[in-house]
């Protein structure tokens, strides 16, 4: 019952909620980002990061340092924290935490299938996979020739199995179909996660519904913009939109028939929460859209920490860490390529 979570939440979730709030206090602040943006080399970045919580993970790295190493070690820290939380969680929190990683699993599956299509080595692809989305039989994905085999050989044993019912066809895997497969899987995952949160009820469902609705709407806009000018038909496009969110169902109708970015902008400006995002962009510009969406997402995630006794804080923490790792990657790349003037183009401050 909404409003009375405080009475019983702490029985199973109190300790982990306090732990995740402790982790949140270790996120990099604006002062840290300012220091990092003024670094001259990757060694400076390593030195600044050693003073933060990433210290133990980076201090044993030999120089010369690569940007990929920095990102890898920071991701390792996130994975360690996630595993610590997962092994101490009980139901339904453990299921909730597992749901958070299914998005990465989908990305890993698509990565391996695409890489195999372009005839890359399986080991090399496995190293590029996101550690949060690994599952046991992932290497066998390289063997499959079409989607039906993919499902039958590997995916039926994974948590992604129920998401495949919509996209099992005997079509061969090529680039277009793989992207469609990725978006179909992600749509099924988002809807499943949304239903699960609704079942949990209370503050968790309210806060997670808001965050997931924003995610669904953002993906709808991205799918629309990316498929303008390709051979994806309108019906196919509409099939990739999730069936919840602010844009459902009328916004989806309008987005499905949009043919350029200004039409998309026209659709989105009818919705007040998204109007502020699109008003920041001048006409015809879509590069800053990603950053505007990230900023809005970060704002909503930070707001979820304002309330106690719900599971939204776990999801928000994982997403904020991922945003921080993206920031670090951007800063490292700018520093390594000596383009420090562009550093502020893509860094989203969390606090």
């Amino acid at each position, binding site marked *: 019952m909404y409003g009375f979570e405080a*009475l019983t939440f*702490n029985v199973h979730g109190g300790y982990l909620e306090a732990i995740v709030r402790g982790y949140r*206090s270790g996120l990099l602040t604006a002062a840290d980002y300012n220091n990092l943006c003024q670094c001259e080399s990757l060694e400076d970045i390593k030195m600044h990061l050693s003073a933060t919580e990433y210290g133990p993970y980076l201090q044993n790295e030999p120089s010369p340092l690569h940007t990929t190493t920095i990102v890898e070690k920071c991701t390792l820290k996130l994975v360690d924290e996630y595993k610590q939380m997962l092994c101490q969680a009980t139901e339904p929190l453990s299921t909730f935490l597992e749901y958070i990683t299914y998005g990465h699993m989908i990305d890993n599956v698509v990565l391996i299938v695409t890489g195999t299509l372009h005839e890359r080595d399986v080991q090399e692809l496995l190293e590029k996979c996101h550690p949060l989305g690994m599952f046991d039989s992932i290497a066998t994905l390289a063997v499959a020739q079409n989607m039906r085999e993919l499902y039958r050989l590997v995916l039926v044993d994974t948590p992604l199995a129920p998401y495949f019912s919509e996209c099992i066809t005997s079509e061969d895997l090529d680039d277009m179909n793989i992207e469609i497969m990725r978006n179909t899987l992600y749509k099924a995952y988002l809807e499943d996660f949304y239903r699960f949160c609704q079942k949990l009820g209370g503050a968790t469902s309210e806060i997670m519904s808001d965050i997931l609705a924003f995610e669904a709407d953002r993906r709808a806009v991205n799918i629309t913009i990316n498929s303008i000018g390709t051979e994806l038909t309108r019906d196919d496009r509409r099939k990739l939109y999730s069936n919840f969110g602010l844009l459902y169902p009328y916004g989806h109708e309008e987005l499905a028939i949009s043919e350029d970015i200004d039409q998309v902008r026209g659709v989105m400006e009818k919705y007040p929460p998204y109007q502020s995002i699109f008003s920041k962009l001048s006409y015809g510009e879509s590069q800053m859209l990603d950053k505007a969406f990230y900023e809005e997402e970060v704002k909503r995630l930070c707001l979820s920490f304002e309330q*106690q006794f719900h599971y939204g804080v776990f999801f928000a923490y994982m997403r904020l860490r991922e945003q921080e790792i993206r920031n670090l990657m951007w800063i490292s790349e700018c520093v390594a390529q000596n383009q420090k003037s562009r550093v502020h183009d893509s860094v989203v401050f969390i606090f």
Partner: protein
Amino acid sequence: MVGSSSSWSTALVRISPYTFAAIGIAISIGVSVLGAAWGIYITGSSLIGAAIKAPRITSKNLISVIFCEAVAIYGVIVAIILQTKLESVPSSKIYDPESLRAGYAIFASGIIVGFANLVCGLCVGIIGSSCALSDAQNSSLFVKILVIEIFGSALGLFGVIVGIIMSAQATWPSKG
């Protein structure tokens, strides 16, 4: 004696006042301890988790646990006071109006104290949990949230005061 002997009111007044008194005493201690325990576990679980990142908060935030514990102590005190009010009366006078009044007074006192302490313990526990989490992030917040807890713990005190006043008038009829 009342005329119609099969009405509910007759049944009620034929229950011995000692039953009501004993139940009142049981509720006063039992439900108070329930409230205190509930509050302590709500505070304690958050406190332990938050103290991993910020060990300095442990000693100050034990005050929240102490406020919850005080609620249980109120229940014990009132239970002891109430049980000293029990006196035996000769069996001819058990169902006198004065006896009934004494029994009901003790029962009401027990309920007042028990349930006031239950909600007080819950209130202090929830605030204590938020206090621990906020203190871990920003130590200047501790004293401000402590003020809220003090107001919360006053609720238990109100219950104890009214309960003791109720029980003061629990006079059984004198023998003879």
